[in-house]
């Protein structure tokens, strides 16, 4: 069996949020995505996440809800899973070209296809409940999204794929950190995490879980991780997530979030090394020029050519397009001081 069989090599997205008709091919083991604001970097991660969870119907639906929650903290905090709110979030998530629920186009077909899975789905507005038709692995399904199912999803009775993880800018919550930290312990990687944290901030001595709470030892006292700066929290998220995505896929939105640029080389060394060791495909987004330069520099230093850089931009017709740079092309662009953060 091909060790990298689970890697997404190409993707086709139709009518999904800002993606009308999009194709990209030639992804590597580690893929960094750049582009201007609101061009669709995070949406590309979302499409990948939904698609990668389409092996199982319930997980597919849960992935949709997780994406909705990631996008809206208010929704996540208040857990307002009324039918009306859920519908609003479907509207946010998918291609909705009308402005009100009543004008919602009934036959909008949303389609995401990769070399791994192909799914399409359409929403039908019903006064009695949302109805979703979807097709996974050529099997048609039709389900009313009832409130009870939503409750199950929110209470995490239904899971997404275990080794397909999505690290959003606000990070993982405690429940996930507690669950995934076990993977670090099983692999005896606690010291490695602590050493990485010490490079980021030499006052941090240790990370551990105490009374179900993630804490760090700093200046001889244990502090809740929530009291840390964004960089340390992001590093813990990434480190724990990548080890928990063995033989899977890790999606990281705004990877540079919270990090000083001098830490990027260390960060990329961690990601490139562990992703290779654990056979994890990584997709990450960034706005940072220093982050992209560091990515190219560290890949070159490690002689890791299984990387790509994906530049998103729009053509004259305002259609979203991707320019995928191979290792060789990315190194050349960076060495020539070319701009690759969108056009």
């Amino acid at each position, binding site marked *: 069996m091909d060790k990298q069989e689970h890697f997404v090599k190409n993707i086709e997205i139709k009518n999904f949020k800002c993606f009308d008709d999009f194709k990209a091919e030639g992804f590597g083991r580690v893929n960094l995505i750049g582009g201007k604001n609101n061009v669709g970097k995070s949406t590309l991660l979302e499409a990948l996440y939904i698609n990668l969870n389409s092996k199982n119907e319930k997980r597919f639906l849960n992935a949709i809800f997780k994406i909705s929650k990631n996008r809206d903290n208010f929704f996540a905090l208040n857990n307002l899973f009324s039918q009306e709110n859920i519908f609003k979030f479907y509207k946010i998530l998918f291609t909705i070209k009308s402005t009100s629920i009543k004008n919602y186009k009934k036959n909008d077909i949303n389609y995401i296809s990769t070399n791994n899975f192909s799914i399409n789905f359409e929403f039908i507005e019903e006064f009695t409940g949302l109805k979703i038709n979807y097709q996974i692995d050529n099997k048609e399904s039709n389900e009313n999204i009832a409130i009870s199912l939503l409750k199950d999803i929110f209470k995490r009775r239904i899971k997404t794929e275990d080794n397909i993880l999505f690290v959003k800018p606000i990070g993982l919550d405690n429940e996930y950190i507690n669950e995934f930290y076990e993977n670090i312990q099983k692999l005896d990687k606690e010291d490695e995490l602590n050493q990485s944290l010490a490079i980021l901030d030499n006052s941090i001595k240790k990370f551990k879980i105490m009374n179900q709470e993630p804490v760090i030892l700093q200046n001889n006292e244990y502090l809740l991780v929530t009291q840390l700066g964004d960089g340390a929290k992001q590093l813990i998220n990434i480190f724990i997530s990548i080890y928990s995505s063995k033989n899977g896929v890790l999606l990281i939105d705004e990877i540079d979030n919270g990090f000083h640029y001098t830490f990027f080389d260390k960060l990329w060394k961690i990601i490139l090394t562990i992703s290779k060791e654990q056979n994890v495909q990584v997709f990450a987004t960034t706005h940072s020029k220093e982050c992209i330069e560091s990515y190219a520099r560290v890949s070159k230093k490690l002689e890791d050519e299984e990387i790509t850089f994906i530049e998103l931009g729009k053509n004259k017709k305002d259609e979203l397009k991707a*320019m995928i740079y191979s290792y*060789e092309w990315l190194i*050349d662009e960076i060495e*020539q*001081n070319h701009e690759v953060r969108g*056009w």
Partner: protein
Amino acid sequence: MVIIVEGKDDRNFFVALLNDLKNNNEIDVQDNINFDNYIEVMGGKSKLLDSNHTKYKKLKLKIDNDNIQKILFIFDCDFKEDDKNCNGMENSEKCFDNLIKKLNWNIKIDKSNNLHIFDKNLDYFLIETINDKECYNDFDNLIKCLEVESIKPNKKPIANLYRDLYPYPKFDFKDDKFQPLKQKLKNLFKKETNG
């Protein structure tokens, strides 16, 4: 837009010339513009004229995505006597035509009368425009006396010696010889700064 050049020296020259145009308000660009971004260094004339060069595949994708809409090719004709297929004015033009045909880009080609600005090569052209003409003549005479041109004319002995002596050559961008090239650059940067 993109300016395709042979080597890093050519890039440095064009960055200097573009900055001169910017400082004299002859092109309308942002103050913090990075001119490197608009120059593709191909790594030599033979690579520039090779349609299979991987950089042309990259540029083709950029053209297809409307990331590039205008391209200016700059390369030396070099000396015919150097006995290479693409040397000299006539052979260079044939090789260039062949390149464009093979690339088959869906992009407008402006092959005006000023297609070839430089006889010999860019370095000779630049040396002729240094501020101190008298100094150049003496310099040129010295090279002739030493008969180094007869050995390797395309190695640009004048330019190389001059560059070694003066790390920051005193090119006179006001020289009339620069005008056709400046006009091409102005056309390239006209209206749009992207593409």
